[in-house]
């Protein structure tokens, strides 16, 4: 339907929409993040939910203490190799549809600890990440920006067709293999299905 006609009908008191729009509007307006923080970025995440930045304006004020009730995972901080299996397991326990925001330099790449032996070089090695936020730590505005980006992404999802989201595709699995803690490193060190081969080193 044309947008102008829609507005015109709205003026007459007739509300026209599609199932897709209604469905996505409902989902994007009540994204419930999971209540867990990993490092200093978590402090910024907490600040974002408080009165000054007020994430409740976007319908995301209810931080759920259980992965079963949450549909957004904010990876807020350094993911150590000791913690990585638990993070993947929590992600697997979340019900579809589920989204991930990787918050801060550590969560997206290992950040200042990238050269270390004990830090995972980006959580996107094991689970798919929807929005990456750089920063050390990112300001609350950056998290809100990421949240709005995620809302736009949810809004643009079509319910049918080849590019429909994972939770509407019966064949797609929302579970990702949990890495084992091996003798020297995590096994496997990376899930190639999620993290394709990186750019060539020159």
């Amino acid at each position, binding site marked *: 339907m044309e947008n102008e006609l829609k507005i015109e009908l709205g003026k007459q008191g007739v509300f026209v929409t599609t199932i897709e729009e209604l469905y996505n509007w409902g989902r994007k307006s009540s994204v419930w993040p999971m209540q867990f923080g990993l490092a200093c970025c978590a402090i910024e995440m907490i600040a974002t939910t408080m009165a000054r930045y007020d994430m409740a304006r976007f319908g995301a004020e209810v931080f759920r203490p259980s992965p079963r009730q949450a549909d957004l995972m904010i990876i807020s901080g350094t993911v150590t190799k*000791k913690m990585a299996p638990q993070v993947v397991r929590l992600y697997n326990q979340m019900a579809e549809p589920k989204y991930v925001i990787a918050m801060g330099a550590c969560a997206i790449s290992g950040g200042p600890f990238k*050269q270390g032996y004990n830090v995972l070089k980006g959580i996107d090695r094991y689970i798919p990440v929807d929005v990456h936020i750089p920063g050390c730590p990112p300001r609350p505005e950056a998290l809100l920006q990421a949240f709005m980006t995620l809302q736009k992404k949810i809004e643009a999802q079509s319910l049918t067709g080849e590019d429909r989201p994972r939770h509407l595709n019966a064949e797609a699995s929302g579970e990702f293999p949990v890495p084992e*803690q091996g003798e*020297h*490193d995590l096994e496997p060190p990376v899930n190639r299905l999620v993290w394709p081969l990186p750019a060539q080193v020159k």
Partner: protein
Amino acid sequence: MKTVEEIKAAIEAAVPGAGVEILPNASPSAQHSLLVNPAHAIAIAKFLRDDAELALDFLSNVTGVDWLDKEIVEKVKVPRQVSKTVDGVEQIVEETVEETRKHVEPGYLEAVYHLFSMKKKHGPVVIRMRTANRTDKVELPSLTPVWRSGEFQEREVFDLYGIVFTGHPDLRRLLMWPEFKDHPMRKDYVEPDDFEYEPTAHDKVLERAKAHKDREQGTGNREQAGGTR
């Protein structure tokens, strides 16, 4: 507070055969430490804690040091018999010849304890213990029974350096997972090869990224690529 020499004398008077050695610190802090024989460590620790004048009742810090095998090159003057023609006559003459000798001093692991006194408000007194080598004789007596605050710190030293503290109540890895086999703070630790992606690689990082690429393609020489993993 007593000086290190006085503490050494006090220990040797209290614990017979303790054999304490002073390791001087040449830096301006002049924080000399006492090298303690592991066999007498518990007795010495108890003395330091319970002695009325020292009263070192607080163990603030335990850390480890990894000392690799050291190759020592020294020049030695050796007398040697050399045949020489002196005035047309062949003679055997004794001469001193300079010779370079090499020997390898075995490495060891070291545990360092920083002690303070809450009662007397003095410190630190630094004591050290050394293992026999870095590979199989890595046991040291745990001082956790004397100072409870050593428990987690000794676990951390065990985790990262591999010093086994005998007598420790709960010696498990603290920071790394239980299946982990290496000791990351040792100088010969080989880091896992997880460096495939580096957008702005340079210097050592670039070397590692290249080595990883070689290994991934199966063309690189493993030795050259810097490690076995």
